[in-house]
C-alpha cells in the first residue's frame, strides 16, 4: 500500500498538470475569457487588445506578430472591426494554421445575427461596417451561441481532448443560462429606458434589455463628437427625453460629461468587455457590472 511519502514522490516525478494544448490568440478580451471558460487548463489565451483600447485602432505591433506566429486558433469579433491591423498581422506572422478559411480562424460575429448590415455603404456616413455592427459580445445570448462554435473548433484542433472541451462547454452553458436568467430578472426595470451612447457600441445590449437608443454623441460613426452636434443634443434633451448617457472606457469622457452637465442626464461608463472596469473581471462579472451600473444610473 502506498504511503503518503510514495505519493508525494510520485507527484514530483510525474509530469506536472497536463500542458496546454491549444494556444489561442484573441483579438478582444471577451473571446480570451470565453476560451478560458471552455478550455480551462487545456488552453492558453492571449488577448491582443485590452478593454481600455479602441479595438478598431490598434497598431500592428511586433509583439502581436510574434504571438500570432505561435497561435493555434485566432478568435476575433470580425465584421471588419480589426480590419486595420489583423490582416497585417496575419500577413507578417507566416502562420498558415490561422489564416482565414482554416480551422484555426474564427470570427465570432459570423456565428450570430449581426445588426445594421448595410448593403449600400458610403463613407460619407462615417465608419460604417458593411458587414454589420461588430460589437456582438454585449448580448449574452450571442456569447452562448459563439461558445458552442468555439468549443467545436477546440475539439477539431485537439481531438484527443474533445471530451474535455465538450464538458467545459456544457458546464459553461449551464452556468451561463442560469446567469442570463438572473440578469434578465434583475434588468426588467431597464426595459424602455432611453439611452444616448457615444458610439454605436451597444446595439446588441439594447435589443436584449429593451433599451431604446435615442441618440449618439458621434454625429458620424467613428469620428469624434463635434461641438455643433453636442449643442443640438443639449437642445434635444435639456427637458428630458433620455435616461442615461453611456460610453465605453476607451471613449473620450469629455463629450458625455459635458452633455450630462448641461442636461442633468446621468453619464455612465459601461465595460464593453472583460477588464473594462475594476468589477468586470470575467464574463459573468462583466454583465453583472453592466446591469448594476445601468440600474444605478437610472434608478
Amino acid at each position, binding site marked *: 500500500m502506498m504511503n503518503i511519502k510514495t505519493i508525494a514522490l510520485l507527484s514530483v516525478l510525474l509530469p506536472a498538470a497536463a500542458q496546454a494544448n491549444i494556444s489561442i490568440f484573441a483579438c478582444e478580451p471577451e473571446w480570451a475569457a470565453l476560451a478560458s471558460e471552455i478550455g480551462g487548463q487545456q488552453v492558453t489565451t492571449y488577448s491582443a487588445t485590452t478593454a481600455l483600447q479602441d479595438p478598431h485602432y490598434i497598431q500592428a505591433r511586433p509583439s502581436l506578430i510574434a504571438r500570432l506566429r505561435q497561435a493555434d486558433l485566432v478568435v476575433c469579433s470580425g465584421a471588419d472591426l480589426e480590419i486595420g491591423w489583423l490582416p497585417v498581422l496575419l500577413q507578417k506572422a507566416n502562420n498558415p494554421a490561422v489564416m482565414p478559411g482554416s480551422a484555426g480562424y474564427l470570427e465570432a460575429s459570423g456565428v450570430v445575427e449581426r445588426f445594421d448590415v448595410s448593403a449600400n455603404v458610403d463613407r460619407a456616413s462615417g*465608419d460604417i461596417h458593411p458587414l454589420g455592427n461588430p460589437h456582438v459580445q454585449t448580448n449574452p445570448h450571442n456569447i452562448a451561441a459563439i461558445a458552442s462554435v468555439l468549443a467545436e473548433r477546440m475539439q477539431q484542433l485537439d481531438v484527443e481532448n474533445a471530451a474535455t472541451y465538450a464538458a467545459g462547454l456544457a458546464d459553461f452553458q449551464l452556468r451561463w443560462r442560469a446567469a442570463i436568467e438572473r440578469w434578465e430578472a434583475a434588468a426588467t426595470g431597464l426595459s424602455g429606458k432611453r439611452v444616448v451612447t457615444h458610439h454605436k457600441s451597444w446595439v446588441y445590449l439594447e435589443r436584449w434589455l429593451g433599451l431604446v437608443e435615442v441618440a449618439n454623441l458621434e454625429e458620424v460613426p467613428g469620428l469624434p463628437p463635434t461641438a455643433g452636434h453636442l449643442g443640438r443634443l443639449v437642445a434635444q434633451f435639456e427637458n428630458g427625453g433620455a435616461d442615461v448617457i453611456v460610453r465605453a472606457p476607451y471613449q473620450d469622457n469629455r463629450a458625455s460629461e459635458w452633455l450630462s452637465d448641461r442636461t442633468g442626464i446621468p453619464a455612465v461608463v459601461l465595460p464593453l468587455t472583460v477588464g473594462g472596469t475594476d468589477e468586470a473581471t470575467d464574463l459573468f462579472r462583466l454583465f453583472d457590472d453592466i446591469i448594476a451600473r445601468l440600474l444605478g444610473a437610472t434608478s
Partner: protein
Amino acid sequence: MSIKTSGQLLCAAALLASSITFAADGEIEALRAALDELRADYETRIAELERRLVAAEQESANAAPTAARSESSAAFNPAIGVIFQGQAWNYANDPANYAVQGFPFGGEAGPFEEGLAIGEAEINVSANVDDKFTAWLTAPLVIEDGESGIEIEEAWIETLALPAGLSARFGRFFSGIGYLNSKHAHSWDFADQPLPYQAFLGDQLLDDGVQLRWVAPTSLYVDVGAELLRGSRYPAAGADNSGFGAHSLFVNVGGDVGSNSSWLAGVSQLRSTSIDRESGDEDEPLIFNGDTDTTIAHFVWKWAPNGNWKQRNLVIQGEAVWRDESGDYTVPGDGPLAYDAEQQGWYLQAVYQPFPRWRFGARLDGLAMDPVAADFDDSSLAAPSDDPRRYSLMTDWSNSEFSRLRLQYTRDEAGPGDDSQWGLQYILSIGAHGGHSF
C-alpha cells in the same frame, strides 16, 4: 403535471361527480372553492408557460446562428483602392538646381516639383490567389513632362502556406531593408523621404527579385529576411551578374513595454554592384561602376496611454545609414577615376498626436562623408565643406482614417544655398485600404 395538481384535479372531479347526485348548498360552496383554486393554479402555470415562450422566442431572435457564416476577408475580391496624393511646394531657391555636394542623387530622389502638382494617383489591387498565394499590385498613374501614363510600382505574389514561419515573395517590391523603405508614400509622416534615403537609396529601393522571410517562434518578435534582387535600380544599376546584381539581409526585433509602449529595432545590409549607374545631373550624369555596401540600423518607439492609439500617441523613430562605395566614377569630360568613399546619413523624428485628428512632427536629417581622392576636388563628388542638414516641421489633420491634409516646413542646409521650403499635401484614399504595418 405535479402530484399536487393531479390530486386536486381528482378531488375536483370527485366533488363534481358527487355534486350531481348529492347537491346541497354546503357542497356547492366547497365545489366552487375547489374550482376557483384549480383555475388560479392553472392561470399561474399558463402565465409561466407564456413567459417561457416569450423568453424562448427572444432567445432565438437574439442569437439565431445564421446558416451562412460570413468572414471579413472575403468581403471584396479583389480588394481595390485608389490613393490620391497631391501637393503644392514653394522654394526660395530653384529646385531644378538642387543638389547635395558629395552625394549625387540617383533614382527618384530630389525635391518635389514647384507649385501645384497632383503628384500621383495610385491604384492598389490585392487578393488571395488561392490557398497558397496572395498577390499585390500598385500601379500609379503618373504625369511626367505633360504626358500621363501608368507605371507598375509594386507587383508581387507571396506564399501563404509555407511551414515553419517562412514566407517567400516574388516580383517587384520595396526592399525590406531599413524601416521606411517598405512604407508606401501615403503612410509617411513627412511629405518627403529623409536625406539618407534620398542620397543612398534613390528615395526608396524598389527592385525585381525574391524575398525570403522567417519569423522566429519566440515571444520576442524576431524576423529575419534575405533578398536576391535584379540590381537594376539605384544604388545598383545595370543588373550585374546576369540580373542578380544585388542582395540584402535584414533582421528585425521588437516587443512591448507594458501596455503603453512598443518598439521595433533592426539592422540590414544591401550589397550591390553597378554597371554604368547614372546619378547627379540628368543631362550630364556621373557614371559609376563598382560595388556599394549600404548598412542601415533603425529603431522605432511608439507610445499611447493604455495603448489606446485613437486618442493620443507619440512615435519616435530614427535610422542611421553607412555607405561604403568603391569603384570608378566617370565625371563628364573626364575618363574613369578610381573612387572610394565612406559616407553616413541619419535622421531622427518625433510625431505627436495630442488629441484625435491632429498630429505635430519634427525631423532632423543629415549626411556626412570622409574626403575622397583629390582627383574629384572640383567635381560634385568632393566632400562638402559643411555637413548637409535639414530641419523639418509638419502638422497634419486627418478627418478620418481615409483623409489627411498636411503642412510641412523644411529649412534646407543641404542644397546649393540655404533654403526655406513650404509644402501643402493631401492624401486621400477610396475603396479598400489595408492596414499599415508597425
